[in-house]
């Protein structure tokens, strides 16, 4: 029932605006009986599946969030908005909200900046560039658990790569995963590394589709490469940047696997993100009501951010 927020959903990918809506809406009502039958037939299966696996769990989550749940996970006492009020006034929950926001912004900004840098570098046509393109997009093929184990080895205080490096450079060894601040840094680094492959590939595709005539014209006019990058490349790939930023933002709000495998929300709740909290409240403490309320709050937050991005970024996007 909580799955709808815990996993990335394919439909959230569909953020690029499609054909004008008003026109097609009038047409639907103008359909004749036979066409309506076909429309129903075509839409039926997906509506049915969505209803069963998305809408029903969503409504059920909302319902549970308005109750208290017993030790058996059953709704017993109606609580109204009690669960929400308690959450939004608890220092613990507000801390989770804070660390989630820090994490989300750090991950989104770093992913896009690094992805753009790599994509720009790899868009040059040089001999052997294919090797670099493959390397830069390689993290797409790495599963979360493998990445987590790989990074756990790197962060290990006694045998890890980072501690060996520190020893070699005569720097103090940092116990990355047991101190609140460094644990957050470690989780951000790992997530950015995981995201980079996909972002790189998408941005590279966008950069390569910018017509070369624009650059040629700019060169003739005497524009420097840096100027060309900011005044031709960025505006031309802005729809893609917009798409990638939304995907990364939503994805990092939902981040779960790496947190579970690397820090388990610790130390002292420093990496206890909203989604991980939902999981712990539901499946460790058995407090399904509170977990449901947290899911609804998370849904609202993600919806708000997506809306905000559409409102602000869309105006600057050059389709």
């Amino acid at each position: 029932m909580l799955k709808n927020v815990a996993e990335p959903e394919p439909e959230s990918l569909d953020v690029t605006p499609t054909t004008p809506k008003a026109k097609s809406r009038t047409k639907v009502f103008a359909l004749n009986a036979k066409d309506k039958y076909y429309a129903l037939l075509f839409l039926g299966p997906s509506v049915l599946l969505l209803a069963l696996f998305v809408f029903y769990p969503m409504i059920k989550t909302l319902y549970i969030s308005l109750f208290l749940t017993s030790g058996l996970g059953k709704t017993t006492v109606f609580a109204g908005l009690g669960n929400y009020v308690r959450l939004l006034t608890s220092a613990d929950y507000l801390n989770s909200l804070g660390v989630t926001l820090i994490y989300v912004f750090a991950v989104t900004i770093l992913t896009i900046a690094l992805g753009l840098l790599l994509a720009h570098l790899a868009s040059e046509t040089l001999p052997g560039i294919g090797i670099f393109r493959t390397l830069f997009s390689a993290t797409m093929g790495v599963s979360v658990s493998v990445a987590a184990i790989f990074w756990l080895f790197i962060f290990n205080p006694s045998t890890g790569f980072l501690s060996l490096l520190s020893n070699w450079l005569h720097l103090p060894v940092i116990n990355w995963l047991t101190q609140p601040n460094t644990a957050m840094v470690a989780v951000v680094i790992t997530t950015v590394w995981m995201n980079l492959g996909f972002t790189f590939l998408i941005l590279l595709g966008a950069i390569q589709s910018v017509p070369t005539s624009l650059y040629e014209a700019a060169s003739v006019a005497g524009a420097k490469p840096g100027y060309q990058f900011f005044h031709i490349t960025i505006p031309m790939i802005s729809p893609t940047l917009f798409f990638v930023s939304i995907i990364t933002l939503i994805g990092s709000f939902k981040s779960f696997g790496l947190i579970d495998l690397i820090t388990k929300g610790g130390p002292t709740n420093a990496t206890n993100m909203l989604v991980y909290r939902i999981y712990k409240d539901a499946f460790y403490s058995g407090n399904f009501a509170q977990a449901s309320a947290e899911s609804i709050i998370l849904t609202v937050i993600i919806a708000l951010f997506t809306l905000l991005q559409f409102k602000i970024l869309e105006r600057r996007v050059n389709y």
Partner: protein
Amino acid sequence: MMKQLSKYLKYDLISLFAVVLTLLGLAVAQKPQAVQAATSDGKTQVVFWHEMGGPAEQALLKIVDGFNKSQDKYEVVPAYQGSYDEAVQKIIQTHGTNTSPAVFQSFDISTAQMMDSKYTTPIQKFADADNYDLNQISAGARAFYAKDGQQMAMPFNTSQPVLYYNATLLKKYHITPPPVSPSYSDISRVATQLYNRSNHKVKGMTVQIYGWLLEEALANARTSLTNNSDGHDGTPTKVNLNNPTTVQFLKWIRSNIQQGNFINYGSGASAGTNQIAGFLADKVGMFIQSSATIGQLTANNKNKLGITYFPHPDGTKANGVAIGGAALWISNDKPQNVQQGSFEFIKYALNAQNQAQWQKATGYLALNKDSQNETVLKKLYASNPEAKVPAQQLATATPNKTNSGILMQGMQLTRELEETAMETVYNGGDINNALTTANQSINDNLKLTNQANGVKPK
């Protein structure tokens, strides 16, 4: 074109029906059904869910295998379920479906939840019908899983918190080892001497930030954490964490921190690993942990290992500590013969020989009193005399309502809040403030839990 389309639609229609039928089929399959309880060779199948990983799982599978070969009526099918915490939810949420287990292992702090669920058949019922003598099983271990004189579950993997010390280091610095049942000041004395005489190279002691250890300190000082005698006389409605015993325990730790004897490894699984590593590397001389770590501490230790009982406050006698670990429960959603098969398996797992073998393989305590006469254990004690201490601590304590565990729902969250309070104190915060804050949150949560479970406040 039209023909093609209609042909296509026909297939689409067929696939739509297929989807609908599949979903209906799934829905029907989800309904509770009579469980298919027989294997192909006519044995009654008994599904057993457990949470033992690593060497303990190997030892457990040996017991299961032994049981299946010992008779031809039942076939126990073991299934590993991951961590204790997650298993509890799986057990409760699958109850009444055909995927639920017939017999399952559930950990100490889920006991109140399991008792209140009414999803299990009490062990007492089978023991009475079978004339099985429950007195052969350790009374201290049984007390945690009993309510109103009824044995609800059978204790299985059972541990005691004990204090470990590095006997070689103590000898090296000419320090008298702590007595077998030490007081707080006995431990402080050793910690100070070790820290000073090693020229501050070895820290004296550590106590992991772990709610279980705090609760055990209360038990050992005959103090209840909750009203209604820690839940043994009815559902707790009030928690009293900010009591003189807790304050005394934290003050003892605080004074050692201030003198520099103490090293803080933090909380969580990594803290447990790091403190063992520190102990084995002569960085810290004493620590308190479950007796189930003995195996790890003897196998890789170049030093001689010393073990004492859990420390108690000065001027009192140790009350004894509650057990940790998990128990075996029998689900009541299975037919009578399956439940009987579950009990037969439990009897087999708890017999003297299997329990002795279990202690040797895992470090969990042998619960059958006759296990102590088994050659396996006699041999173990001959080579590692200190291995006897946890069992002695369990045997010498008289079970009462303060040292038989806390029967309260929501213990997972309670422990988290206790640990936050400990963390605050370890980092120099005010003891009284930390305990008041934690106590408030625990009580708020308890009130909601009781309200949801329909418990009326008294």
